[in-house]
């Protein structure tokens, strides 16, 4: 219910998007999680062929998906931090370079970038497949991450910078000791969301013959012709992973917002 005097735009019916302190069991998240878990247990139990066989075939793909995701996000955070700082830099050249990178990356679809880095650059530099996938993902997500960092740094009141400078900190110290430690609170939740988005986008690396969850599923389906069953399991596995991750992130968000409420 909208409180008097505050204009509130409700997205959906409200029940589908629970607030972090929602303890109710009947939320979309709980229904989705229960459904995914029940199906992932029930289907292989009732019909081991093909469901259990699929579950046996896919696990190393889950490992690969997580490897690509974790390495990519780590590299993307580093690139993002540098880009974010570059984008607010007063140095003309640095600023231009960072902005150019963001513009170029945002203008090329991720799938095209993956093909480009893997096959086009493969002609000049010999990079192993996994590394090529990680570089491509990080290169793309680094640009998005850069915007997250820039927004986070900008969200800290300019008075803080002025105060730090007047206390004798130089620009670098101000950024490292005053601004960034505070900006982290604003930056972390969107970084978490990018992590989930990246995890889902890693399914694109299956075109580079990287044996992730989707690739393993496709290999299984192409041999057994159980397309319906295989992709059902693949979808459920992805759903389960992202549901758990999104809950973790909303918990983290909740913890972080604790500071603001005090």
């Amino acid at each position, binding site marked *: 219910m909208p409180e008097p005097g505050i204009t509130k735009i409700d997205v959906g019916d409200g029940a589908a998007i629970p607030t972090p302190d929602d303890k109710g069991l009947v939320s979309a998240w709980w229904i989705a999680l229960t459904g995914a878990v029940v199906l992932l247990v029930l289907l292989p139990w009732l019909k081991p062929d093909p469901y259990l066989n699929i579950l046996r075939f896919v696990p190393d793909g889950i490992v690969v998906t997580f490897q690509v995701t974790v390495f990519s996000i780590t590299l993307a955070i580093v690139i993002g931090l540098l880009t974010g700082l570059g984008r607010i830099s007063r140095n003309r050249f640095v600023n231009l370079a960072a902005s150019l990178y963001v513009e170029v990356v945002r203008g090329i679809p991720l799938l095209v970038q993956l093909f480009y880095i893997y096959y086009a650059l*493969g002609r000049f530099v010999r990079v*192993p*497949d996994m590394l090529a996938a990680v570089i491509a993902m990080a290169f793309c997500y680094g640009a998005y991450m850069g915007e997250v960092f820039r927004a986070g740094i900008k969200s800290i009141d300019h008075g803080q910078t002025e105060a730090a400078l007047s206390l004798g900190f130089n620009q670098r110290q101000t950024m490292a000791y005053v601004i960034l430690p505070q900006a982290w609170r604003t930056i972390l939740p969107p970084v978490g969301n990018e992590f989930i988005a990246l995890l889902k986008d890693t399914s694109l690396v299956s*075109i580079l*013959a990287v044996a992730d969850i989707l690739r393993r599923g496709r*290999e299984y*389906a192409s041999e057994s*012709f159980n397309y319906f069953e295989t992709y059902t399991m693949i979808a459920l596995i992805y759903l389960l992973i992202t549901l758990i991750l999104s809950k973790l992130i909303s918990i983290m968000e909740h913890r972080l917002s604790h500071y603001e409420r005090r």
Partner: protein
Amino acid sequence: MFNKLCTTLLVLLALCGPAVAETTIVFATDATWPPMEFVNDQKQVVGYSIAFMTAAGKEAGFTPVFKNTAWDGIFAGLAAKKYDAVVSSVSITEERKKTMDFSEPYFTVRQALIVDKSSTAKSLADLKGQKVGGQIGTTGYFAIKAAPGVEAKSYDEVGLAMEDLNVGRIAAVVCDDPVAANYALDKYKDKLKIAAIIESGEAENYGVAVNKGNTETLALINKGIAAVKAKGLDKELKKKWIGQ
């Protein structure tokens, strides 16, 4: 006036006549498998299989329509009745026979092992512990998977596997011999070579796949294939597209 209308209608009917009488069969093909089926520089789907089916259509009285479809999922599309048949260098295997029906064989292939020119490997057994690529869901890929100690790597298209072999990310590629020849003796002739033909014991034949029980389509296609073979047209086509 009425007479005129009638005449016009009759003329129209006469014009449509032959087109209606002839059956159209929609074939799905993954046109990334030169020289059997591929897209030429005029963006047309061409190749040996395509020419063969067009000739078969002329003999048996059906109009073939070719639909370029990604290999991965080509059989799922057939099961979903998105097209009538698959003519995409499909080797007839016992596994595949369980889910679909096959026409009479129209081509015989063997699996070829392609390696870098500098490589000394002569068989899959020489490549233990190394990565070998093939197109997903093909008999070539199944051969790699069946080889003990070899790390199998599946690609969406055989061309992508060849490129990975070219830049050195994998040690070898296994695919049908006409395709292997097309890449190793033509496109990448300075870089790659055919190391060996993998003997699997049984001859591997290409057939046209249709849904189980689609006897009508299958009969037409079989009739066409038999007529093309009887007339010796297949030899001409082989000369033109494969060069043997």
